[in-house]
């Protein structure tokens, strides 16, 4: 079952912050985050495992709340290069299959 992402889209000015949420109705084993630029393949950002700590990648970080089956991606002090569509992929039952959300389109303007 696919996770639910919110919001669907967000528009930011450079330097602003944003939060993208990813929720599942099933218990999660891991959560992946990817960014896709228009016409390109998704690119890996980070993985969070249940029981793991918050991860960070430059000014992009993420958390994983096992009790709520939810992960959040934090874009801090956004840059123009952060524009793209962000997808969360969730793994349940340690079954090697990732189900992706519908994506959140982020537009960062100067």
């Amino acid at each position, binding site marked *: 079952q696919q996770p639910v992402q919110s919001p669907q889209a967000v528009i930011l000015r450079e330097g602003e912050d944003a939060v993208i949420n990813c929720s599942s109705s099933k218990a999660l084993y*891991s959560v992946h985050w990817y960014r896709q630029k228009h016409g390109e393949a998704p690119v*890996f950002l980070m993985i969070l495992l249940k029981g793991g700590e918050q991860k960070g990648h430059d000014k992009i970080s993420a958390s994983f709340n096992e009790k709520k089956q939810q992960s959040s991606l934090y874009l801090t002090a956004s840059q123009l290069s952060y524009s793209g569509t962000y997808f969360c992929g969730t793994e349940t039952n340690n079954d090697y299959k990732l189900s992706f*959300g519908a994506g959140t389109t982020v537009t960062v303007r100067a």
Partner: protein
Amino acid sequence: NAGVTQTPKFRILKIGQSMTLQCTQDMNHNYMYWYRQDPGMGLKLIYYSVGAGITDKGEVPNGYNVSRSTTEDFPLRLELAAPSQTSVYFCASSYSGGVDSYNSPLHFGNGTRLTVT
């Protein structure tokens, strides 16, 4: 280092035709996946494989077949193309999954854009 290579990049099929989308990886990854992405949508898993000789269905397997005779290759077969199969197809691989997921980001190919008319 080529990573994950998909061919062709673009293809137009007529309804009822068949074709094979090729995917090969040179990273010695055990796990390989096929996803489709419809316009403005997320990725849906078609089939996946955890090693040579082992394949399993994902969320949307109908109308597709796969095989995994070697670690490197994971072709996707469309037998009777239908307009509903118009999509962008991504092949991906990872070193492992499950308990070793920390070391297992998906590496995606550049995609095959398929149109069925």
